[in-house]
């Protein structure tokens, strides 16, 4: 069945050579170990986060009056809500761990060196994006912990010389943390950051395919 669909598509698009050579039959170099899995695990967690996040957006309302109640509703009333939110929560936590381990592995093996500098740079950008995901996502439940963590986090932003005050006000959408902050954090968390992340991930993967995995010495 699937084979027939595949052949039907191949007849029209002529994709077989490309799929076979460039996607499926790419041999990995010898001498790799389990630490080479951390990048892949991070990507897997990203996919889990995306899937559970899309579905939570069905119920979540980014407004100070309703955010907490909608999260409560997702967690305790929607079927499987506890599981979906739990997966999102734990994947987010684990992703910080695995992205660190991935980065440490790349650093220790010197895999960031020429010719893979651009990949290292996109990787660092992705790391920053993951941190931004964490920071913006933390506010969304709109409980005491979320509110005060963001209060502290944005205040730290305000201590940067010269530009700090502007950065703080633009981040909060005013001088006080409130409805505008929640709305813009939500927009960043579910639209802006995911789009930028996917673009960088495509670059990250295409480059590693083109250059090959750096092998241990």
């Amino acid at each position: 069945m699937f084979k027939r669909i595949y052949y039907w598509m191949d007849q029209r698009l002529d994709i077989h050579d490309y799929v076979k050579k460039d996607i499926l039959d790419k041999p990995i170099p010898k001498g790799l170990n389990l630490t080479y899995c951390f990048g892949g695990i991070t990507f897997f967690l990203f996919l889990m986060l995306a899937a559970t996040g899309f579905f939570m957006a069905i119920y979540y309302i980014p407004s100070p009056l309703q955010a907490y109640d909608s999260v409560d509703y997702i967690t305790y009333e929607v079927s499987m809500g506890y599981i979906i939110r739990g997966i999102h929560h734990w994947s987010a936590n684990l992703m910080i761990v695995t992205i660190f381990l991935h980065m440490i592995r790349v650093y220790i093996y010197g895999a960031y060196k020429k010719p893979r500098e651009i990949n290292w740079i996109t990787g660092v950008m992705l790391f920053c994006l993951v941190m931004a995901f964490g920071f913006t996502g933390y506010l969304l439940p709109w409980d005491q912990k979320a509110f005060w963590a963001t209060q502290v986090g944005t205040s730290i932003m305000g201590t940067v010389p010269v530009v700090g005050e502007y950065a703080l006000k633009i981040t909060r959408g005013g001088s006080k943390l409130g409805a505008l902050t929640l709305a813009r954090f939500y927009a960043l968390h579910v639209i802006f950051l995911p789009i930028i992340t996917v673009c960088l991930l495509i670059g990250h993967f295409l480059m590693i395919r083109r250059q090959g995995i750096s092998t241990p010495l």
Partner: protein
Amino acid sequence: MEIGIYTISGAIASVSGVALARFAVGPSFNKEKSKWIEVEMEDVQNESNGFTRVVLEYETKDGWLTSIERRLAYIKKVKETEVIAISADCTHLGCIVTWNEDQEIFKCPCHDGRYDSEGRVISGPPPAPLKRHPAKIEEGKILLNTRLIPLGGEKSV
């Protein structure tokens, strides 16, 4: 031809870019509006009786949301035409200070910060004197501003 295409795309990109940037910044740099609020005359006692606690209740706008904000202040008439209003928010961590009539000090229950009757720190952790609300008497009415200013006016900071 080529220059024309670059010019047009450049123009579209920069105009929409500027508009989007301004849109994203939005009301971030708007000044907070302050209001004058009338306080019931009967509540306010003369100086000999110390401070009276009043509640300032007013509407605030947070983006599209309108909510009621409440603040506590201690007010006292110093002359027939002059009134002072000291904010009850402790400058340490924002607990509500109480006026102690016997000792003539403001005490904070959280970490034992103490202020004198002018709001100056006597002891404890508070880093600054209690803030003031601008206050005035007009046509026999006591008006308090929702804004907070430091002791000694805004220039003292």
